[in-house]
C-alpha cells in the first residue's frame, strides 16, 4: 500500500491515485510525421521492466494532477516523483527525493 508523494499535496495514500502505465512512452511529438512503427511502439509495446519503472499516476481524488513516479516493480520501493514535463528516467540513480 504505497505512499505516493504528490508534487502538490505531499505524501498521500495510493488509494487517492489512479494508475496510468508506463511513462517512458511518449505520444509522438509530431503525430503527422510519426510512422506506423512509431505508433505501434507507442500504443502496444512496453519495456515492462523488472526493477525500476517510471510510470504515470493521477492524483485523482486529490488535486487531479498527473505525475511521474519512479517505482521498483520488484520491491515496490518508490523513488522520485516529477511533474509531467520534468525529466525522470528508470535509471535515475537518485534513490528518493527525501
Amino acid at each position, binding site marked *: 500500500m504505497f505512499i505516493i508523494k504528490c508534487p502538490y*499535496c505531499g505524501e498521500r495514500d495510493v488509494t487517492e491515485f489512479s494508475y496510468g502505465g508506463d511513462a517512458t512512452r511518449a505520444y509522438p511529438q509530431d503525430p503527422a510525421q510519426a510512422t506506423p512503427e512509431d505508433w505501434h511502439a507507442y500504443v502496444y509495446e512496453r519495456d515492462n521492466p523488472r526493477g525500476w519503472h517510471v510510470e504515470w499516476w493521477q492524483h485523482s481524488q486529490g488535486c*487531479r494532477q498527473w505525475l511521474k513516479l519512479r517505482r521498483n516493480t520488484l520491491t515496490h520501493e518508490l523513488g522520485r516523483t516529477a511533474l509531467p514535463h520534468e525529466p525522470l528516467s528508470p535509471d535515475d540513480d537518485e534513490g528518493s527525493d527525501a
Partner: protein
Amino acid sequence: MAEITQRRSPLGGRAEARDINIPDGGTPGVALQHRTGLCITQAAAYPGCDAALRASLAEIAGSEPDARPNRSVAAPAGRLIWTGPAQYWLVTEDPQNPASDLAEATAETAAITEQGHGRVCLRLSGRDARLVLAKGSTIDFHPSHFAAGDCAQTGLLSVSCLIDCIADEDSAPGVGPVFDLYSARSTAEHFLEWAIEAAAPHGCRILTPGSGIAAP
C-alpha cells in the same frame, strides 16, 4: 410565468436535528450540520496566470488566497480554498454569488466555473471529529498535521471529499476542531449516512441545517 425560488439540496429533509447515541445528560463526541445555500466558484488560471488570478480573487473576495497547496483562508467574502494547481474555490453564501464578477475580472487569465449546486457541505465538529474523519480518509488528521487553514481533497470511504479545517482545538477551544466537508451531490445520501454511522459510536448530535461558511 412560474419562478423557481428555492434551492433544493439532496440532503433537504434528511439531515434534520436529532441526537444519536447520546446518553441522558451526556455530551456528544461530535456534531454534524448540513450547510445550506453555499455558492462555490471555482477559478482556474491559465498557464502563467496564477498570480493575476490571485490578485483578481483578492479584489473580489477581500483577501488573496494562500498560494500554497492545501491551504485555505477566511476572506471577508467567504473562504478561499486551494483545490489544485493554480486553482481555487471561493465559497460564499447566497445570494452573494461572485461568479459573474469574477468571470469578468479574469476573462483573460482564468476559467471560472460554478460548482455550488454540485456539492453538499457537512460541518463536522467536536472532540472526536478527527476520529470520524480517520474512518473515511487515510490522511493524517493529528492536530499537528491538520489544523485551521489546512484543507485536503481526499477519499472518504467510497466518495471524494474536500475537507477544510476552519477551526481547531486552539482556535475554537471547547468546540473542538471544525471541518467543512464538501462532497458530490449525487452521492449525498450515502455521504450523510456514512458520516452518521461513523459518528454514532462517539455520540452524535445533528444540528439544524444552517447557512453560512464562517467559523463558529
